[in-house]
């Protein structure tokens, strides 16, 4: 009997049905290491899961990838829940992944929480210990991988904010065994030689395992001991590491760290300008205010009254002077009148007037002779006339 040949498709279909009928293969829980990982542009993930001896092809369709809490990549140890089935067209069997988790993650989480609690109790996260980040650092030290997007992002953001920025990159391995030792060494060296005014400790996103160096106790202690302020920017915004808790400032991303470490020079220049304007306005206001005060003061009674008073005084003095003048003049007049009267009276009494009328005064030795009895014959007597005197001798005295 000639056997009937079947087609390849029929065979593959047959095998597929066999496999699909196996309940155990419908829900396998398997662990292994990822290799040959490809994230297709359609959103599906293709990779190989392996251990020391064998490997199996895996596919994770886009719909299932939305449940992932990490980005799978080569070398990562994972736990997978999936279905083993046959890809008929390729004649290969593979795992169709429904869910994937990082292997050993439970242990890491436990270690993370324990260390976090321990360091928190010790006060390594205390706000009081956190140093101020300088707003205008001379130099920014960047501790990260020399290759990759992180350093480029930091340089881009920093130079955009300050075209004259001074960045010193200290290359460090950011994952893998021994990375923590290099990170500690870098922090210590930066401090020992005072190589910058601020440090950015940065790393791109990754699995908890990748970020693990930043969860190491020695790194935490080195950050705590650093005299140079440290900004941590490890992983994505949602990733928190021990380094983030100890650092003086935590930035959600490396780009954000660059923004926090470097002021925007344009902004600062605008601020300085606005200060200058405010100085000018304030001074102008002051001068204006002083001018108004001056004018107001000048207009006030305090300044007006004294001049008025002085004028009044002057007026008083003038009036008094005038009064005095009048009084004095009156006095003079009075005196003159009195004098004239006296003189007039004197005049009438004056013997001279009588003399003018033809009378004479007879004197002897200065004595007025009023009687014949006062003279004898031959006496020398003086006859006073109004215009002179005559000396004569008495010839005869008769009664």
């Amino acid at each position: 009997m000639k056997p009937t040949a079947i087609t390849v498709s029929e065979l593959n279909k047959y095998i597929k049905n066999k496999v699909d009928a196996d309940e155990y293969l419908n829900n396998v829980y398997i662990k292994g290491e990822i290799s040959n990982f490809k994230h297709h542009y359609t959103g599906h993930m293709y990779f190989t899961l392996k251990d020391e001896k064998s490997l199996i092809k895996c596919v994770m369709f886009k719909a299932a990838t939305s449940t992932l809490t990490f980005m799978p990549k080569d070398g990562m140890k994972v736990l997978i829940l999936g279905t083993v089935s046959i890809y008929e067209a390729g004649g290969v069997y593979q795992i169709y992944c429904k869910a994937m988790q990082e292997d050993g993650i439970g242990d890491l989480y436990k270690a993370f929480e324990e260390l976090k609690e321990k360091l928190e109790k010790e006060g390594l996260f205390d706000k009081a210990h956190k140093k101020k980040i300088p707003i205008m650092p001379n130099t920014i030290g960047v501790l990260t991988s020399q290759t990759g997007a992180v350093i480029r992002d930091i340089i881009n953001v920093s130079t955009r904010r300050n075209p004259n920025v001074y960045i010193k990159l200290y290359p460090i391995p950011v994952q893998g065994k021994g990375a923590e030792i290099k990170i500690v060494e870098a922090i210590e060296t930066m401090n020992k030689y005072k190589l910058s005014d601020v440090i950015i400790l940065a790393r791109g996103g990754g699995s908890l395992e990748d970020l693990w160096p930043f969860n190491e106790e020695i790194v935490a202690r080195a950050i705590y001991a650093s005299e140079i302020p440290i900004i941590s920017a490890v992983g994505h915004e949602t990733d928190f590491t021990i380094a983030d808790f100890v650092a003086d400032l935590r930035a959600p991303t490396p780009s954000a760290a660059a923004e926090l470490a470097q002021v925007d020079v344009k902004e600062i220049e605008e601020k300085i300008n606005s200060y200058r304007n405010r100085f000018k306005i304030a001074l102008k206001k002051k001068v204006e205010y002083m001018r108004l005060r001056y004018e107001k003061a000048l207009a006030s009674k305090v300044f007006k009254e004294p001049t008025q008073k002085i004028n009044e005084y002057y007026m008083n003095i003038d009036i008094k002077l005038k009064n005095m003048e009048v009084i004095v003049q009156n006095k003079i007049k009075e005196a003159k009148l009195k004098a004239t009267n006296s003189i007039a009276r004197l005049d009438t009494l004056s013997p001279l007037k009588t003399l003018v009328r033809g009378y004479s005064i007879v004197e002897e030795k200065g004595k007025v002779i009023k009687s014949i009895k006062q003279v004898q014959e031959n006496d020398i007597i003086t006859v006073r006339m109004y215009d002179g005197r005559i000396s004569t001798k008495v010839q005869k005295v008769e009664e």
Partner: protein
Amino acid sequence: MERTNSFEENMQNLENIVQELEKGELNLEDSIKKFEEGIEISKKCNEILENAEKKITILIKKEDEITEENM
């Protein structure tokens, strides 16, 4: 280090001077003094910003020695 400190101090000084001037409690002479001081400090700040030089370097550690190379 010096630039960092002086810059922050200067910015703080500018802020203080603005506040003092805007309060308007100083007499005219002191106001003018403060104004001049403020303008002087703002000039210094601008100088610091303008005189800095762009530099991006990579630190290389060999044993106990650090060398700096342009990137």
